[in-house]
């Protein structure tokens, strides 16, 4: 019978984009706690205080590369680094993302292009450049390698003045189904699933709430937290660790028959 030991990630190599904060950081920490070697990327300089303090906590189990998910050359560097250092890759979490809010007629074309570039191009490029190595490594693991694309409940339901973010996260959802069908059809040992967090206490959420406060939509951020909590059956927002545990499930061999699927982690927000 599969025990807890088999569920863990010893011997696995994972890449997590946007790994220095929020859901990405919680995922990196969880993977390391489960025994994985993790390569994390983000936009901060490699000698930044942020990167150093995260790496210090993670010891020898993680290393950090500054990489812009929108740049193909950066992904080539990440992929080469993973191949040179570890020779394999079993898990890819395309987590890096940004948001954009505002009335559709007021959105600047460059801002639209920027969110599409980070949220959509970034997921495509990460997948494109890690898939060859993940296909090689996948046969070592029950269920194969695992790609986890971080979408959002905003990739499932629309929201006023969130149209650009809605579009980008919807694209992530369908990109995931397309590659899942493709890998399975070709018998490539890679699974792909999308993760759909609801409202989570992260730096991105805080910044978004603050923008709403600045625009006069709410008096203070606490009011928005109370409003969202009230609209969530579980009655609160999530902690990043609660999203990381779903990423861990999708990364582990416990999800070996799951591909092309979605896990919504939203406390029931979209069930209502």
């Amino acid at each position: 019978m599969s025990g807890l030991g088999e569920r863990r990630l010893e011997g696995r190599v994972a890449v997590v984009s946007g790994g220095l904060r929020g859901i990405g950081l919680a995922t990196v920490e969880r993977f390391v706690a489960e025994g994985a070697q993790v390569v994390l990327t983000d936009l901060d300089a490699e000698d930044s205080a942020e990167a150093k303090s995260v790496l210090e906590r993670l010891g020898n189990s993680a290393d950090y590369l500054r990489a812009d998910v929108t740049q193909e050359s950066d992904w080539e560097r990440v992929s080469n680094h993973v191949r040179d250092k570890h020779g394999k890759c079993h898990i890819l979490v395309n987590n890096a993302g940004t948001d954009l809010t505002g009335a559709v007629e007021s959105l600047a074309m460059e801002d639209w292009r920027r969110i599409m570039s980070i949220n959509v191009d970034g997921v495509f490029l990460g997948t494109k450049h890690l898939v060859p190595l993940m296909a090689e490594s996948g046969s070592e693991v029950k269920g194969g390698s695992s790609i986890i694309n971080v979408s959002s409940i905003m990739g499932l339901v629309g929201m006023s003045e969130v149209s650009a973010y809605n579009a980008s996260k919807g694209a992530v959802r369908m990109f995931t189904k397309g590659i899942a069908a493709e890998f399975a059809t070709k018998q490539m040992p890679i699974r792909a699933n999308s993760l759909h967090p609801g409202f989570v206490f992260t730096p991105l959420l805080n910044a978004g709430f603050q923008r709403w406060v600045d625009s006069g939509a709410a008096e203070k951020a606490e009011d928005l937290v109370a409003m969202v909590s009230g609209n969530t059956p579980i009655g609160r927002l999530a902690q990043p660790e609660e999203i990381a545990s779903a990423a861990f499930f999708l990364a582990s061999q416990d999800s070996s028959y799951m591909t092309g699927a979605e896990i919504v982690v939203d406390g029931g927000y979209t069930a209502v």
Partner: protein
Amino acid sequence: MAKRLDGKVALVTGGTSGIGAGTVERLASEGAQVVFTGRNEAAAKDICEATGATFIKHAVDDADGWAEVTERLTSEHGRLDIAFANAGTEHGDASVEDVTVENWNAIVGVNQTGAMLTVQHAIRMMKDNPGGATGSVVINSSMNAHRAMGNYVSYSVTKAAIVALAKSAAIHCGNQGYKIRVNAILPGVVETSMIRNIIEQSGDADATRAIYEGMAPLKRMGNVDEIAALVAYLGSDEASFISGAEIVIDGATTAGMMGV
């Protein structure tokens, strides 16, 4: 080492075979005290010996019989943390044009009313748990909730209905302030003894097996332990922010098309 489900009490309906039996085994291996129901006493005896679980003979659609299940769980374990509404049937199903009302009613009785009774009694028990109203209910729907089958109208309709059951119950628990999560899982074709029997009795076992295996782009059926692993995850505190969700586990069968 502490196990993930240590101290938790679990109920599995339809636990004597297939996904139910596999889930009894998995939950027990992770430290839960497991009570399971069903009708096959001989199969149940073996499962009890292998896993240490307890069996209560009960058909899920027997509304009156739920009193005994509830009473025994309360008196013997004092709480309920995980309920897996798993019992289901497709016996006698047919197309909408051909199905008899008796067979339709029987399938609705087990798959839909039985699931509702399971969720209802689970929530009634969980809300009185010592320490507060906590728990996790998992409903075994099917990928056919999203993609109906022409020749299995009752099965397809009931499996779709119980996805709404999960969402309604999740919202209700939120409204009441219970920390009880309710979710549905939607498996694809799983290689259970039921499916194996269909394959063996089909006349051309190899061809029938190939049809079932070819349904998923992954080119294989799911295994019972793979579904049980998802139930264990949802039942555990790892899934503390997942409620009202429907999770497909089908080897990409419903994700799209295989291409040319």
